[in-house]
């Protein structure tokens, strides 16, 4: 196990709870950083089950190794699936059936429910009894971003643990030491990830960093009065579609194909999964554009490179960002927000982009 994950575990409240021997049988892990919650959940499972005595867990014994590779028969993972990305009642029932049995290896049992707030009402209601009073030696860990979507009856049965975001330097450390990212790149990703390990990892997995470069470049191209807005919007839409198609291909099978009974999705359900991937891709585009605009405003006002998210783009920024009125820049920011809303309201993406680029050009190219 990496030193950073171990450090996170060491600082967590859960470690002290296990130390004191007062472990609750159901925890609700909350916070924006998915990865951090999952790492802690895995560490907690190991701490509860590791067969070596002494330290919390050894990370060496077969039990720890199997938990790390998600292959332990007594550590159950449940995550939403199907077109609606839900935890359905059949899935909840099947995990309850397994939990009602004695453990496979004779020790404790841990069930980890990822995105537990995606349980539909029936599933949540059927889980109430299990969460309130699990069988002996059984622990449940529910993972979600916040409590808003949960039934209050579920929340009241769990002990809540909130995982805040990390500071920027921890993310840089993580990227440099664990993911072997070169320092300058790590700095940029850390700024973009806002102290969120999951976000940082996303920048590693796909070519999002390169995608960001393209979008920033695109933003600056709007400033050239000779740029053809319509052509720009068209190529930009095409790039977004290409990226979405690629991500559709890369959807893990348990989300794309699998309904709990193993049957394939209908074409309509499939289309809805693809649509949500596409929407996700569009929202990433607008997020990056917004950040870029934010940097532009901040640099325009302060000239301080330290405050920028896209800290590697100072040179380009300094070339363009000078002497704009705050009002005009803020209007651009508002336009970006409006454009995204228009897209969500089912306006064709190409039109949305054409109008947005045109407005930005009108504001900023005198």
């Amino acid at each position, binding site marked *: 196990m990496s030193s950073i994950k171990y450090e996170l575990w060491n600082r967590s409240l859960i470690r002290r709870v296990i130390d004191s021997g007062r472990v609750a049988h159901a925890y609700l892990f909350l916070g924006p950083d998915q990865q951090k919650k999952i790492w802690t959940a895995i560490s907690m499972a190991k701490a509860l089950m590791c067969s070596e005595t002494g330290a919390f867990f050894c990370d060496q014994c077969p039990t720890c190794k199997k938990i790390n590779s998600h*292959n332990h*028969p007594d550590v159950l*993972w449940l995550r939403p699936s199907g077109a609606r990305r839900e935890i359905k009642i059949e899935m909840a*029932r099947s995990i*309850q*059936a*397994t939990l*009602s*049995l*004695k*453990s*496979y*290896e*004779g020790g404790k049992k841990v069930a980890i429910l990822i995105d537990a707030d995606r349980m539909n009402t029936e599933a949540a209601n*059927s889980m109430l*009894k299990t969460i309130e009073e699990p*069988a*002996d*030696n*059984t622990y449940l860990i529910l993972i979600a971003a916040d409590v808003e979507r949960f039934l209050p009856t579920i929340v009241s049965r769990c002990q809540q643990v909130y995982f805040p975001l990390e500071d920027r330097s921890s993310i840089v450390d993580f990227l440099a030491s664990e993911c072997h990212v070169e320092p300058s790149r790590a700095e940029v990703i850390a700024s973009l990830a806002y102290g969120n390990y999951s976000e940082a990892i996303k920048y590693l997995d796909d070519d999002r960093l390169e995608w960001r470069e393209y979008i920033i470049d695109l933003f600056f191209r709007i400033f050239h009065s000779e740029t053809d807005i319509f052509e720009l919007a068209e190529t930009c839409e095409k790039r977004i579609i290409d990226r979405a198609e690629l991500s559709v291909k890369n959807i893990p099978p*348990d989300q794309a194909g*699998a309904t*709990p009974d*193993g049957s394939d999705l209908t074409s309509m359900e499939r289309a809805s999964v693809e649509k949500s991937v596409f929407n996700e891709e569009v929202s990433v585009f607008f997020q990056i554009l917004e950040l870029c605009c934010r940097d532009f405003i901040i640099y325009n006002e302060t000239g301080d490179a330290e405050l920028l998210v896209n800290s590697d783009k100072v040179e380009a920024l300094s070339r363009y960002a000078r002497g704009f009125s705050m009002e005009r820049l803020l209007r651009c920011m508002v336009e970006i927000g409006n454009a995204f809303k228009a897209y969500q309201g089912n306006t064709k993406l190409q039109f949305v982009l054409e109008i947005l680029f045109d407005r930005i050009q009108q504001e900023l190219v005198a």
Partner: protein
Amino acid sequence: MHFICERSVLNEALHILQNVVGTNTTLPILSNILVEVSDKKELTLTATNLEVGIQFKLDVEVKDQGTCTLPGRKLFEMTKEMAGEKIEIEVSSDYIGIIKSGNAVFRLMGLSSDEYPRLPRLDKVHTAKLTASVLRDLLKKTAYAISSDEARYVLNGVYFIVAKGDVVVVATDGRRLAMVKKKTEIDPNLDAGIILPAKTVNELMRILHGDIEVEILFSETQVGFKLANMLMISRLIEGKFPNYDQVIPKKTKESVVIQKEEFQNIIRRVSLINTGKSNLVKFRFNDGSLTLTASNPDVGEAKDDMSIEYKGDDFVIAFNPVYLLDALKILDDEQINFEFSESTAPGVLKSGDDFTYVIMPMKLR
């Protein structure tokens, strides 16, 4: 890995293994069967769905030892449809199996055996021996009473107890309780009590027949059943089974001997009038006769009677006929004993000296 064996023997083993070969999407390797060939002329086939695991050991002609996993369902279908008497299976180091029998040849994509979960080893085992047909009978007489309500998971199986040389098997869903008690030659010092999951009970009933001896291996968290060349290992339900003894009335006011077949027939006849909504049959005992009536406002009414040897007071009690029929169906005795005290107290059905069935009455309207 390379071996030759009787096709029918292999097919028979694979047929039984099919029942646990999973369609589990979380661990795809469970849809395969673990095939191991040792150097001692022995082929081991293992399948598990992590709840129930079955293992066969077959004598084969070993050409080359090794292990791998092969898709369970396909392998079974192939051995079933092939025509030759012998079957030859050879698996290369990249887990591609060549299966030959008669003139037919199949190539089947397998997987490495590294990821396949091994059957758990049973530690601190106590053993008891029973004849297959006896064990089957014990399960058959109780299994139908298992609760299917997931919320009360301790009732989702049969409680299997060995104490003082007796075997007691109990199942209940809260409305009726079936219990069989059998004197056996098991070591009277052995004391064990486990809750066997319903799935395991069904698997066992499918497998058990004849006079073969079954060795039951009790361990802390698992139980094993060893029959000839087969070993079945099952997980157990966690928790404490309710105190069933408390539910069985110690003393009842009346006890009537009833001809089973006729009793079963009139219940079936009268309950024809019942639909899902109303499921109540009234049993009126009076001097020398038993009268059954049922009424359903949507359909109509039914009445039938039979003569019995009853001398007591006029007495009416109501039951859900389905629960009575469930128990009567599996009994082979000609006569049964029916015991009751009052219309709000449970009725007890007894047969032979080993079977007790407690059934809650319904409210008389």
